[in-house]
């Protein structure tokens, strides 16, 4: 969440939501959360585990790239 929330401050385009998986089991099931942290961007790109800033940015850009 740390990188996500800093990205939200850096750009008006970015929203960051931290979700406590055990309190929201339905949401966690819907997004097939098996391990944490799990990051889902625009319901399109997802990854598990902590990643460096460059990789996180790469995932953000991938999520907005034309299919």
């Amino acid at each position, binding site marked *: 969440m740390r990188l996500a*929330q800093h990205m939200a401050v850096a*750009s008006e385009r970015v929203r960051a939501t931290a979700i406590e998986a055990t309190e929201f089991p339905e949401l966690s099931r819907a997004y097939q959360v098996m391990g944490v942290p799990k990051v889902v961007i625009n319901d399109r790109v997802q990854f598990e585990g902590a990643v460096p800033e460059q990789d996180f*940015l790469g995932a953000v850009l991938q999520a907005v790239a034309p299919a």
Partner: protein
Amino acid sequence: MNAMAILTERDRTAVCKEFEKLTGPVKLVVFSQELVAGDLCRQNEQLVREVATLSDKLTVEVLNPAIDRERAEPYRVDQVPAIAVEGARAYGIRFYGIPSGYEFSNLIDSIIVASTGEPALSEETKASLQALAEDVDIKVFSTPT
């Protein structure tokens, strides 16, 4: 009657130290709905109020999405308990569920970055994000350990 404090003296001291970095005002908007998740919402609200007592730069607003519909609607918060962290603008930072453990550290960090408006990111990352032509919604699932 006061409920027992959630934050320990040690937590309060550590957070106060972190809050020395605060520069601008931050509003913590708490979303609570007694009928949906009473206990969790009460604990969440209490936690936020305890954090807010640690700096005069912090204010708290509590909204019930079912009652305060017009005020709550722009936040697009569809779960309770939830917290929105706002600084010079509505940054779009949300916490669904009670932020405890690692997520509590993230809440404190989000308050600081919302206050300063200065994200700890490389110039390259900031430039890429400012050039985004589409909205980006990032969800981060975690557990309290």
